[in-house]
């Protein structure tokens, strides 16, 4: 009697093609699980995916919106790639983005109201960066000084930021011309970002993001601080041995990470909404989705362009799901979650291989 036995073995060198194919398979797995949900709802998943794909990537309308969503995703992801490189798990881009939005609103409606746009707009970006960075600084210092886990603190800071936005729009900043709706007044024209005509693409933010892609890449690869970040992220003991200052690394990566998320927040309120409003309207989870795009790009800033474009498309697809398929848009979050889970678990597939062995009868007796 022959028996088949399964054996799991460690793989030491992973060929390049496998490193490309495995994440794609992971995404396909997530897609097929969501397909089951479509089926339960009586929707043909193939047609649904075709529609989503077509609308998001093949129509001018879709691509325009896709780029609008890519802007905050790319900015947040660039920041996260720096933090993740240092093995610092900043889950707080969402809150840091909201702080940037608050900063922009403060400049636009209160601090610099009535100033010309060439003063207001740069001021919004600068203060947005500072607010986001300071918001991220708190978990960085807690980790540096008291070893507090940054995953928990950054996540919790998101809720504080959300409540802060709610407090402002229900309280002191509630609009005077908004019939008591919990939103602020509209930004004056000087505080509204210029758009590419015919779209909602606020090109100054897009420009900043695109310039930052090679800048962050070179920062991580070729600078002294980038080197310290890599060493610290890969082996904190060796970093200490080499005299690398832990607090300095933690503070720098969190300032960059939070600051870029803050800039994303400025873009959303000053470019699209023109007012501070409900947190869930300002950001449809960009700070969380950015975790996935960063992971998918293997922390490489250059690869962030395709991954954020793909996920921008998925968010547009979410609108399709909502409007055309009449499913709740939370299906998109479900999909995001499934992709992250499959990606993380597919990493294990890269490191191990499963072998089937045919075992003879004699062998089996020995162990019965």
């Amino acid at each position, binding site marked *: 009697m022959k028996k088949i036995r399964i054996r799991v073995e460690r*793989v*030491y*060198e992973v060929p390049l093609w496998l490193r490309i194919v495995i994440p794609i398979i992971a995404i396909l797995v997530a897609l097929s699980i969501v397909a089951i949900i479509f089926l339960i709802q009586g929707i043909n998943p193939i047609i649904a995916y075709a529609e989503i794909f077509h609308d998001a990537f093949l129509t001018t309308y879709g691509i325009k919106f896709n780029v609008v969503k890519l802007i905050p995703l790319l900015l947040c992801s660039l920041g996260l790639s720096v933090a993740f490189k240092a093995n610092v798990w900043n889950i707080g881009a969402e809150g840091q983005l909201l702080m940037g939005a608050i900063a922009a609103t403060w400049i636009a409606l209160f601090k610099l109201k009535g100033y010309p746009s060439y003063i207001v707009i740069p001021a919004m970006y600068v203060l947005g960066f500072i607010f986001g960075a300071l918001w991220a600084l708190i978990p960085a210092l807690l980790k540096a000084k008291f070893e507090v886990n940054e995953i928990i603190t950054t996540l919790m800071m998101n809720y504080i930021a959300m409540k802060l936005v709610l407090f402002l729009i229900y309280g002191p900043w509630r609009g005077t011309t908004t019939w008591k709706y919990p939103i602020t007044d509209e930004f004056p024209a000087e505080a509204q970002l210029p758009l590419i005509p015919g779209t909602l693409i606020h090109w100054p933010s897009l420009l900043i993001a695109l310039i930052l892609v090679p800048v962050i890449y070179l920062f991580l690869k*070729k*600078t*002294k*601080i980038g*080197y310290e970040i*890599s*060493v610290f992220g*890969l*082996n904190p*003991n*060796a970093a*200490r*041995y*080499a*005299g690398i*200052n832990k607090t300095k690394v933690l503070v720098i990566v969190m300032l960059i990470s939070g600051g870029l998320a803050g800039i994303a927040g400025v873009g959303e309120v000053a470019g699209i909404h023109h007012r501070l409003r409900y947190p869930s309207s300002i950001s449809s989870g960009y700070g969380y989705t950015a975790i996935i795009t960063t992971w998918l790009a293997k922390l490489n800033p250059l690869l962030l362009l395709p991954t954020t474009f793909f996920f921008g498309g998925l968010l547009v697809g979410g609108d399709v799901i909502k409007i055309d398929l009449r499913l709740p848009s939370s299906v998109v979050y479900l999909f995001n979650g499934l992709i992250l889970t499959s990606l993380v678990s597919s990493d294990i597939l890269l490191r191990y291989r499963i072998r089937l062995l045919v075992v003879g009868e*004699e*062998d089996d007796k*020995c*162990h019965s």
Partner: protein
Amino acid sequence: MKSSKYYLSPFSQTLSSLKKGDIVVLMKGITKRFPGVIANYKIDFDLRYGEIHALLGENGAGKTTLVSILYGIHQPDEGEIYVYGKRVHFRSPRDAIRMGIGMVHQHPRLIDTLTVAENIALSLKDAPFINPVPNVEELIKEYSEKYGLKVDPKAKVWQLSAGEKQRVAILRTLISGAKILILDEPTTSLSPPERNDLFEAMKALVEEGASIIFISHKLKEVLGISDRITVLRKGRKVGTVSAEESSPELLIKMMLGESKPMSIGLGLGKAKDQLHKVGHKVGKKILEVHNLYVLGDRGEVAVKGVSFEVREGEIFGIVGVPGNGQRELVEAIVGLRKALKGVIRISGVDITNKGPLAVINMGVAYIPEDRIKYGLVLDLTIAENLILKDYRRPPFSGRIMLNTSYISKWCLDLMRRYDIKTPDINTPVKYLSGGNLQRVILAREFSHNPKLIIAFRPTYGLDVAATEYVQKLLLQEKQRGAAILLISEDLDEIIELSDRIAVMFEGKFMDIVPAGRADAERLGLMMMGVRFHEEDKDTCGKSL
């Protein structure tokens, strides 16, 4: 025998009919491949009843792989294994244990917070479910008397010395019925007297009918205790010789291969002697440690008032059983651990508690004990590892950017000078062998002519050739005028290299002796806490 209550050997009848010299384990044509390497290639090995059979070879020769196959940890790709004449296929160590095979690892896997008896009870399948410990305590007493493996069954494991832990691990395998024992480098962390105790116990065990496979790369030990010696090299068997007909020269030749021994094994040895004889012109004080107190990881005072100095052109050796405060002392000097009290000066500058960067900037080279944990970043390239301490300063970097073209030129130069073998400088260091890893660290630390070198167990885990290389480099550096602090538990190494030797025991120096007056036996006893008085040279009792 009481143990039969717990363990009924399925082959007790076979055992009673065995005579000395009968073959108990036979491994035929064992081949095992790991990705990229052939760990074992067509190896034949046999173990006879009542013998100590040593497996000798350099790191990576395939010793551990071979016994792991016998113990069921790995399965061979090819080859057959017979135990007591019966063909076996071990799927896991559980199968091997059932056939009476026991393995004692280099670092015994015991639970620190439990007592000795509790640890052993855990591994006994047939111990009573409720309150198993009292029975086991009796068993432990019975076994430890029989084989001279003294240990207190009620002691907590964390209180034990390395040697005692080893005894517990051996008792554990014996009590669970093992008659075939595999000891994997059992002497690595033992002091010389503890090592002698272990050898006595091993002799008692074979008298009582056990058969032992003894893995080592220390020639002296192997020649002293074994009946037969099998030498492996690069995954292949070189040959098996009986202890009587072998000599250190023969074994070295077998370990290193026919062509090499003259140039590497013995040649370097001579070069080393010459370097050593050049004599040392001691210069200025470089390192001064005065009345230093340092806390250990558990908040205990690990270093208790240590004072010494190291001068230019001198190797100051600190020898001691691991765990007597050496690690805390070194970490305090290099700035990785806070000193509680006392002063550390380098070239007259007080660097106490100034942190690692201050020490690096003083021109101190540090070869850490744990290379993988502290010395290297495995996922980074060789170049990135080589600049770990230099990346801050020109010409390695400007104000912001790294100077990559200079770095690669410099790395290629270092790789040539220190003979680091690798396909190219962008290979992550995790793909390098142990010897090459140490060369990367040495190249980095020695490349700027440091004035103080702190070498913490620099040859630990290295094979003969790599050990020779490291020792030769240290002597060269000394000749150049570096002050060297060498910390090791290897008494031979310390005596061979040092100009002055301090023995560290329980956080204090027992004594500091010049190398000329060092006597291995006395130093060995001092490592165990035996104190001698200067006036009368005889032992004056323990000072514990």
